[in-house]
């Protein structure tokens, strides 16, 4: 899987100065996506990228622990999705996440153009007719791309840059509670 699926895109802001760093981030994301222990664990994917680009001795944490750690750490600061997108295109690691009981979810902003997301099939049951069918998830505005792996079966949570940061959560109420962090002082 790669980041160049046939999805709408907006202008890529990567300058030549940061292109190398952004390429390194992209490469780390691709490796994390294919990292076997990350196949069923979002936090392993995030951990892989952090180890690769920030601190090789970074301990493994669960998604909820990642969020607690970044919230309390002096080294990590909160950014908006748009700031996160710009930073990712400068090669900075930007982690997004939302705590949940028992398991939250964390992702990394994948460098590149913004995309609309959606486009994947999912099953649903019509509560009015009682029938079960498949639907195609719609796009939800232009947002940064995501590196995401998941222990669950939601297709929006499996992304090597071809889906947006909205897709793992896939609804406005949940996505409004997703926060993003970047590390200023590695």
């Amino acid at each position, binding site marked *: 899987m790669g980041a160049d699926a046939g999805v709408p895109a907006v202008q890529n802001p990567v300058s030549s100065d940061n292109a190398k760093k952004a390429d390194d981030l992209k490469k780390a994301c691709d490796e994390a996506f294919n990292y076997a222990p990350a196949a069923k664990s979002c936090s392993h994917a995030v951990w892989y990228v952090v180890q690769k680009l920030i601190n090789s001795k970074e301990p493994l944490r669960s998604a909820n622990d990642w969020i607690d750690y970044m919230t309390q750490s002096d080294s990590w600061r909160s950014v908006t999705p748009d700031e996160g997108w710009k930073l990712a295109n400068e090669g900075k690691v930007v982690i997004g996440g939302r705590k949940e009981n028992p398991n939250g979810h964390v992702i990394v902003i994948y460098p590149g153009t913004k995309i609309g997301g959606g486009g994947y099939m999912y099953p649903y049951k019509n509560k009015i007719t009682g029938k079960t069918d498949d639907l195609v998830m719609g*796009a939800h505005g232009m947002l940064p791309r995501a590196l995401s792996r998941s222990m669950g079966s939601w297709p929006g949570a499996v992304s090597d840059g071809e889906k947006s940061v909205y897709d793992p959560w896939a609804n406005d109420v949940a996505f409004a509670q997703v926060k993003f962090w970047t590390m200023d002082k590695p």
Partner: protein
Amino acid sequence: MIDGGCRILSGRAPAGNFPVIAVTTTPFVDRVSAPLEPSQESARHALNPVGIVCGRVGSLDIRTHISKTARCRDPAEITILCFDCGGRPILIFSTPHYAAMRHRIQCASLVLVFLLAAVSTLGQQKSAATSAVHGSLQLDAKACRPGTPEQKKWTDSDWTPFESYKIACPLRTRAGAVVLYVLSVNDYDIEKTRAPDAPAPKLPKALIVTPQGRIVGRLPFAFPFDAPVSLDVKFANWSHGFPQTVELYLEDPAVSGNRKLPCLKWDTKQGQYIETEVTNGS
């Protein structure tokens, strides 16, 4: 017998959304040919010809709606509260709220109304008891139907793009009476007609509406489906035939998973269901 001849009309207060029954001194001898007797039968005879209804409540007659308590200390401060209009207290009539009324209100007229109400109360007690709700009632998505032209008027301009997808989902007591409606859009049909590469439309949030058309609450999503999540709605904690709590459960196939959402609580002062926690919905 009616002192001086009174007429009981249905109407609406100029500044409020509540139904109004105005009691005036206009003679209605043209409608009632026989003197009234304080019995249920004569009350029905006397009142039905003048078309007494509780605003837009529907076909229920006035005896169902008149309060068991009212004041007539001073004709200028007369208030009648209806305790059975859609299951919650509704101000039927209050002189300060009905400024357009110019005729002097006769206490005698109200005495008659209360007499009729007292007679009818005996007959209501049985039906009220059988329609009482214990526990909670789940809103049945299968009961959702396309909104009627009247119901479609309850929504604002945000709903205009979804005119043909509006649905009304009745909340019925086990006796079959509609207590509330949830007005929403049928996102199953919207999703079916949406091109696969088209953006998902931003749906209006479902509304909780009284049978009279007053909006008393909002759900955090469209009901029952707001792709890709589904909402289960349960009305609980019933009091005087009206649910005090709306319990919400979200079936979310994405990473957050299925979960309870903060419930909505009835706020008597505001006459609205209010969120018990902010859900940060956009």
